[in-house]
């Protein structure tokens, strides 16, 4: 994929203009040598619909359902007619229609689908984005490995407490960088006051003295992190956080909705070397029935996601970027007014997978069409294993949790969807 990578020469030039002017600092040389490498696997954009979106009002319509099924670009595959642009992208998408995840409680289900583990007392498993940061991030990059983007909410704020991505035993350095508002970008990125250069110069001499007197790994780590932050402020890649830098035409294509702008920001970040972006949009817990709410959401959802897929494809990035759309569970068949973890859908796109297919099948007839799985049930660990494999990780490895307790990256019982991976 096309990435504006900084070269060592650029780095040296940037640094010469800034904090370290005229100062030779040993750790800086090491950093410059390491340069800014590429991430080691594929990137992921997780579009999280917090509260649980209805499968029958999106990607698994049923005869006689509230929303009508419409044909897509792939003969034989139908999704709801409210998502026509996504229908046109079907060749680049895969529908997983047979998720079976056993938990109908919001927070516990969010935990399960973010970590691949059931919540256990006194123990925090790392979120998949933090695992990606740990496994895939380019060393010494001036871009963070894992970013979350808050796409706000539309209709109401329910669906239980939000899940906070926790790195657990992988270490706090894998905590995501949070963008609270896509229009504002990354907080504190711009300098306050007008004499930053003078203040940095005042700081540099003292820092050098301290690192000579206290030549310790943690002191070096702090000075390196400080330098990375200053480099990010000055880096052309930090422009990635600014959606305003995008041509008006492109911003419009993604839609004026905050979700669309979040998708655009996600694309810019992946382009700049971020490994994992989670865009979360809240308020999908449609206890009064999904039809009316979904009718309102469909236009901006359809537009933003279809544009994201097309845009990544145009830039030659789609094969290296996996898009996943999902919530913590689906909704009851029919009007979708309840939580439903027995048979629900997620949508995957790009990522170099065998796209243009449907995996799994739910019942079409009977008393409760869509209430049961007829083919290939996908458990939470199957899902997690497939996701990690698709991003290029070795899932057969253990992390060391407190108490000298080895915890597998993904539960060994997982049966990844090999039919999806090429």
């Amino acid at each position, binding site marked *: 994929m096309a990435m504006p990578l900084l070269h060592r020469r650029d780095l040296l030039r940037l640094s010469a203009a800034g904090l370290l002017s005229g100062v030779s600092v*040993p750790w800086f040389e090491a950093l410059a040598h390491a340069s800014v490498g590429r991430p080691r696997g594929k990137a992921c954009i997780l579009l999280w619909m917090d509260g649980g979106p209805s499968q029958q009002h999106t990607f698994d319509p049923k005869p006689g359902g509230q929303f009508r099924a419409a044909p897509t670009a792939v003969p034989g595959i139908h999704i709801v007619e409210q998502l026509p642009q996504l229908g046109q992208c079907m060749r680049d998408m895969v529908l997983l229609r047979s998720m079976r995840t056993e938990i109908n409680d919001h*927070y516990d289900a969010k935990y399960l689908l973010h970590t691949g583990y059931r919540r256990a*007392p*006194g123990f*925090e498993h790392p979120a998949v984005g933090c695992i990606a940061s740990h496994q895939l991030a380019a060393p010494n990059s001036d871009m*963070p490995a894992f970013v979350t983007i*808050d796409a*706000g*909410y539309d209709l109401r*704020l329910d669906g239980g*407490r939000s899940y906070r991505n926790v790195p*657990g*035993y992988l*270490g*706090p*350095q894998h*905590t995501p*960088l*949070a963008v*609270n*508002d896509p229009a504002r970008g*990354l*907080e*504190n990125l711009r*300098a*306050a*006051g007008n*004499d*930053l250069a*003078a*203040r940095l*110069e*005042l*700081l540099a*001499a*003292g*820092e050098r003295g*301290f*690192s*000579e*007197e*206290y*030549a*310790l790994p*943690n*002191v070096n*780590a*702090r*000075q390196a*992190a*400080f330098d*990375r*932050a*200053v480099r*990010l402020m000055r880096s052309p890649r930090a422009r990635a956080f600014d959606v305003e830098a995008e041509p008006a035409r492109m911003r419009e294509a993604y839609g004026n909705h905050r979700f669309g702008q979040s998708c655009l920001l996600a694309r810019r970040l992946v382009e700049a070397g971020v490994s994992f972006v989670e865009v979360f949009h809240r308020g999908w817990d449609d206890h009064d029935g999904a039809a009316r709410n979904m009718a309102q959401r469909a236009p901006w959802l359809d537009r933003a996601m279809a544009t994201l897929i097309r845009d990544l494809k145009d830039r030659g990035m789609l094969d290296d970027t996996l898009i996943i759309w999902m919530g913590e569970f689906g909704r009851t068949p029919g009007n979708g007014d309840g939580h439903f973890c027995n048979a629900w859908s997620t949508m995957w796109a790009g990522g170099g997978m065998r796209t243009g297919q449907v995996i799994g099948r739910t019942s079409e007839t009977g008393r409760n069409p869509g209430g049961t799985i007829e083919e290939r049930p996908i458990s939470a660990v199957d899902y997690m294993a497939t996701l990690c494999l698709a991003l290029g990780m070795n899932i057969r490895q253990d992390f*060391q949790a*407190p*108490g*000298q*307790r080895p915890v597998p990256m993904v539960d060994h019982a997982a049966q990844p969807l090999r039919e999806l991976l090429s």
Partner: protein
Amino acid sequence: MTLHRSLFLVLGALTIAVTPPGASAQEPLFERDVLPVLTKQCLGCHGGLRQKGGLDMRTMPLLLKGGKHGPAAKPGDADTSLLWQRIASDEMPPGETKLSAAEKALIKQWITKGLRTETKKDEDAHLTPGVKHDPKEVAAAIDKHIQQRLTALKLDAAPGSDDVEFLRRVTLDLNGCVPTAQEAAAFLDSKAPDKRAQLIDKLLASPRFGEQLGRTWREWICPPELPSDMNGGAQPHKQAFAFGDWIGKQITKGATWDKIVRDILTVDGQIKDNPHVIFYSLVGEGGKATPDGSARATASFFLGVQMQCAQCHDDPYRNWAQNEFWALAAFFGRTQGDFNTVTDGKAPPNMSKRGPKLPVAKGAEIVIPPSAFKNSGKAVQAAFLGSKSIDLAVEKPLRPVLADWVTAKENPYFAKAFANRTWFYFFARGLVNPVDDLRELNPPSHPGLLKMLGNEFAASGFDVKHLVRSICNSETYQRTSRASVKQDRQAIAAQTAAFGRMPVRVMTADVLYDSLRQVYGDPKLDLRADDAKGAAAMGQAAQIADPYIEFLRRFGTNEDDATDFTHGIPQMLTMINHPRLLSGSKALDAFRKTNPTPEHTVEWLYLSTLARRPSASEREAAAKYLANSQNSYVGVLWMLVNRSEFLFVR
């Protein structure tokens, strides 16, 4: 994490490279060399849980006693030793994994050389047990223990700290905040010969000591994500903070550690009168007290033993049987608690929510629930760790009985567990690591020292300040943490690991926040993203908490290793660019009202942040900056709080 691992490597290399007195470098020792192999290969069947063939291989006497076929090893004669015969022929271990050639060679050599064990010299506690000593005496004994080990390891101790290092370190450790400019100047200028001991006494007498200890324990006890289920989706931060404050107030009131733990273990009533009620739901599940959560926390925090594995299965590494865990949990079997109340009911609550129906527990029994995977449905009688089950009257409340045993002077874990945690707090490493993993197969680095600190703590009636005063008055605590760029990295790591040099630690979020609030003279210092106030309008009210909680979330440190630097780009950008850190300090304004000279103001800023006066070149650089920036003192303050020297506890 990586720091942890490299430290282990260094320590591992050290133990192999160093020659213990009385043994040649090549001679294998039981504890150091042989036991790790036995643990990995043999103890699963010949250890605490199972003794196949009547053989238990955990200690030397047990090995010599042997099983039904006779002693496992004969000194000096490998060929007739059963241990060697069985492993040489690969008869043992019976599985697919056999001992490697190197492991076999080690065992054979160990037998041939006469089954050598480590000398037990440093297990001597130096001070008479059962008697409380003067803190100075205890401090001297601490130094003796540390020096003994350093000598054995052929390491030198680092020189003593200078006054600035000591002042800043001890103030941050005991009062959780940098000293003010006035406090710093007073100490640095004092000529009193015992000014360090005086300062320790002063800091211990301040209510801030209790506060700092209380919030440290709160951090250890509170999980990263607090339960919210019983609280309308909101996390019980307020209650958790009140719990930390409560611990602090008890200390300030002069309560001893056994009293505090007894109160926690026996609390019964409403949270409005008893802030420690929240303990049970914090360590429970879904905002409710659970017998297993209470047992796990009691074991880890008050007894220093890890029982989380034994909850679901016998723990082969720690020799805890699943039964022993549930026997401890049985004391909490009738305890019902949520965010508001804790009380003991008549019958144990049904722990099986949706699963199969379980038999009803009787009296002091608990029935293992299905969530434990193994032995679900089995009834276990209450028992103290490591002893037979006890006869308890059904009507008698069970928790006070447990509290009696936990807080008794004779309890083998209680005093040592607190001493080890306290040591860990000051030195970033316990005498036993992990800090709650006291057991035979994980011996302390300084067994005699841990024994002595435990004895002394118990003899003082579990007086927290006595223990802390003793540690802080030791030369060991008062050594420098300087590590010049000219010194050898590995030597420094080894010296620090052996407590011959103080580590450089990262300020916890609480300490950093208090220090910033003090130097900016702003009790409500708000470093949230500047759009946080408008967030409620955009539906983020649930996401963005008050300034203090958001600060704690952002600047959190590694609880397992205080030397680990964990901040990344978001923290750095906050410190560099948050407008609040450039928009003035009320403390500075108040000082400027006294009409000080520019030189004085710069000195005041250095004293307020780094607890020292600026050097000549620092004065010069500050003057140059001020001349070019229309006397922007807050720019100098910004520079100082962005210094590594500010963030680290050196």
